[in-house]
């Protein structure tokens, strides 16, 4: 396999990670744990398949995915902010809910317990899996620009300043009139919409929804956020690193050089190492996961 093909494959695998991680950074920096990324992605993937199937157009699927991810995110935000529920508990509940709802509606709409029928994806002219094919998928472009975009929003805009403030010291933000709750709602909603796009990429790329198709990608994105120490650019680089490891694993398959399970572990092991602080400790936003009364 050529270097170009390797890089193209890495990018292809990285796109959903990049989207989910970009969304997750916004949520975590605002103080809400991104355990729910997996659920947003799964919901987004399902909505993308349904939208694309119903309208016969992938763009409708994309919009549906944004809506689906955003809706789950608002449920999460409402429970965590309005009702002050424990973020870890509802995070897990939202993921279970996404699994349950997609399964239920898979049966209801497509009468299947495993997958949807083939749905339209973005047209690719000419065969191949290289950059040429990737470049024709608009979601790839969104995935590529989302990290710099989120980074710009976070560090260069008033909204980003407020997100960083409410995730670090909500009482301080409130004391100067920053509407803490509203900033958090918006950050979480955005995170759901962006992560939902990651799910849409998966479903439209494979031209169908399959049960549990996100397969832990939301958690890999979360791992990338922590490994990247809550900075969007570093999180993006972590996504690429994890994707490269996966590409390598696919390349090595059959050679028996390293059992695939050990390659699968890489993102998680690196994240634990980062948290344990072997090479500079990863310090989360101070108000992450904390219920606030403002």
């Amino acid at each position, binding site marked *: 396999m050529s270097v170009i093909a390797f890089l193209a494959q890495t990018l292809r695998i990285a796109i959903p990670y990049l989207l989910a991680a970009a969304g997750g950074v916004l949520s975590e920096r605002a103080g809400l744990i991104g355990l729910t990324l997996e659920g947003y992605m799964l919901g987004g993937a399902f909505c993308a398949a349904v939208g694309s199937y119903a309208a016969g157009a992938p763009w409708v699927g994309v919009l549906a995915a944004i809506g689906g991810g955003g809706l789950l995110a608002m449920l999460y935000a409402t429970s965590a902010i309005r009702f002050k529920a424990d973020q870890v508990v509802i995070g897990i509940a939202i993921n279970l809910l996404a699994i349950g709802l997609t399964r239920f509606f898979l049966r209801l709409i497509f009468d299947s317990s495993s997958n949807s029928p083939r749905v339209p994806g973005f047209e690719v002219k000419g065969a191949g899996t290289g950059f040429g094919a990737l470049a024709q998928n608009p979601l790839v472009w969104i995935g590529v620009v989302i990290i710099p975009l989120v980074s710009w929003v976070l560090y*260069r*805009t008033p909204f980003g*300043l407020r997100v*960083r403030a409410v995730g*670090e010291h909500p009482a*301080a*933000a409130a004391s*100067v*009139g920053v509407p803490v709750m509203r900033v958090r709602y918006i950050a979480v909603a955005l995170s759901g919409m962006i992560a939902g796009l990651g799910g849409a990429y998966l479903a439209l790329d494979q031209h169908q929804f399959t049960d549990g198709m996100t397969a832990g990608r939301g958690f890999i994105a979360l791992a990338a956020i922590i490994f990247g120490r809550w900075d969007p650019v570093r999180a993006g680089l972590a996504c690429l690193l994890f994707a490269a490891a996966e590409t390598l694993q696919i390349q090595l398959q059959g050679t028996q050089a390293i059992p695939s399970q050990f390659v699968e572990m890489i993102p998680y092991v690196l994240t634990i190492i980062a948290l344990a602080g072997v090479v500079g400790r990863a310090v989360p936003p*101070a108000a992450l996961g904390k219920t606030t009364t403002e």
Partner: protein
Amino acid sequence: MTDMPWAIQLRGIEKRFGPVQANRGADLDVARGEIHALVGENGAGKSTLMRILSGLYAPNAGSMTVNGTVVTGWSTNEAIAAGVGMVHQHFMLVPTLTVAENVVLGCELTHGLALDKAGAERAVHDLSVRTGLAVPANRLVADLSVGEAQRVEILKTLYRGARILILDEPTAVLSPFEVRELWAVLRSLRDAGGTVVLITHKLDEVIDVSDSITVMRQGATVARMASAGATPQAIARAMVGRDVALALDAEYGGRAVSEVSAGPLLDVRNLNVSGGRRTAVVNDVSFSIAPGEILGIAGVEGNGQTELVEALAGLRPARGAIVLAGRDLVPLDVRARGDAGLSHVPEDRHERGLVLDYSVAENLILGQQHRFTRGATLDHERVAANAHELIARYDIRPADPTLPARALSGGNQQKIVVAREMARDFKVLLAAQPTRGVDVGAIEFIHARLREARDEGKAVLLVSADLAEVLALADRVAVMYGGRFVAVLPRSEATPDTLGPFMTGAENAA
């Protein structure tokens, strides 16, 4: 507008937090262009009243007028827009943001969609030059000193155009030099037509800097007076409602060490505690306490007192020697130090001294749970018997051992801690801020217990931010400043006048 002299008029403000009534019918009149001191004991409702004025809380009843306009129940944003700014006791700064980012947060300068960072830094710099509040605009707040952080807080309010500045206990964390600087800034703000409300419970400050004074007690405003001609005694009387505070046994002369004994019960040599980034929070401290002696540590809070006590108790790693009745405590953990005869009333009962959701009975054995066991289990009969005895002896109310500690008043909570620590078999007592935030009755009770301990031949280390308390109890007074003991005086030589220069760092005898 100009013939309307009042900047602030509050009438009949009521505020409840659940069962707690923080403000009851509070009135406040502050004239334009004056420095007004709002004084009262801890828990008198000063901060709550000012948070209502600054829009953080809505009052349950009452009316608020600012510059002649009725503003009852306004929001923080409305308050800021009307030129009311508050500097909170606990800094409301985001440590991971820069000075400039903190200053503009909430009313950001923009350049198209983006933040105008250069503009913000320039604005902060200009303001800083104009007011004399020097701060580095592009540094992270986490890297600032306490004094610098407070200047950022004041700049924040001025940047928002504050003409009415509220400061909540601004001097608690400042060095004397920084306090003088702050007074100068506040006076120049006043002279430029600004209005300042200063929350404090330090009476010397009040008379020193303010033009007029309002006194609060138990949520209500009880007196208003001009500063010129006001005496500390008059203010104190209004604060506590009777003539106790300053009379707190101020006549106590202390006992000469030679009278009390031979060998020290507690001997501390060259104790050092490092505190994170900054080098030493306790710097080469040595002292000893004899049986039957109370050593009082005076000093502005934040000069290493907390760390010193925690290091002695085993809650914080330290270098040096700590010897209790001939026994080296350094290698011992918290529990073993307790068993060796060290009792500890911690400065923060809500965080350290009590498990608030545990019952009174459980809290009365906290730290001694290993003495109330039968095999692996707790012996509930002995726990209950202990509770009944201590509740009666220390008059803890309500006398119900099954209530969670959370349900008791501050004074009764503190009595639980004091009862527990004084009922155990001890030789040395560490009493850190033993009467903070408790009512006058409980203060008297706790002081009596401390004197009792002294009379029984125990050694007591008393740390208090309240100089009057130190002078009322101590046989010797040490002053801590910048992590060091800068002076140790016998009680007979210790007066506010002799101690003051040491507390403020102006003098150093050690």
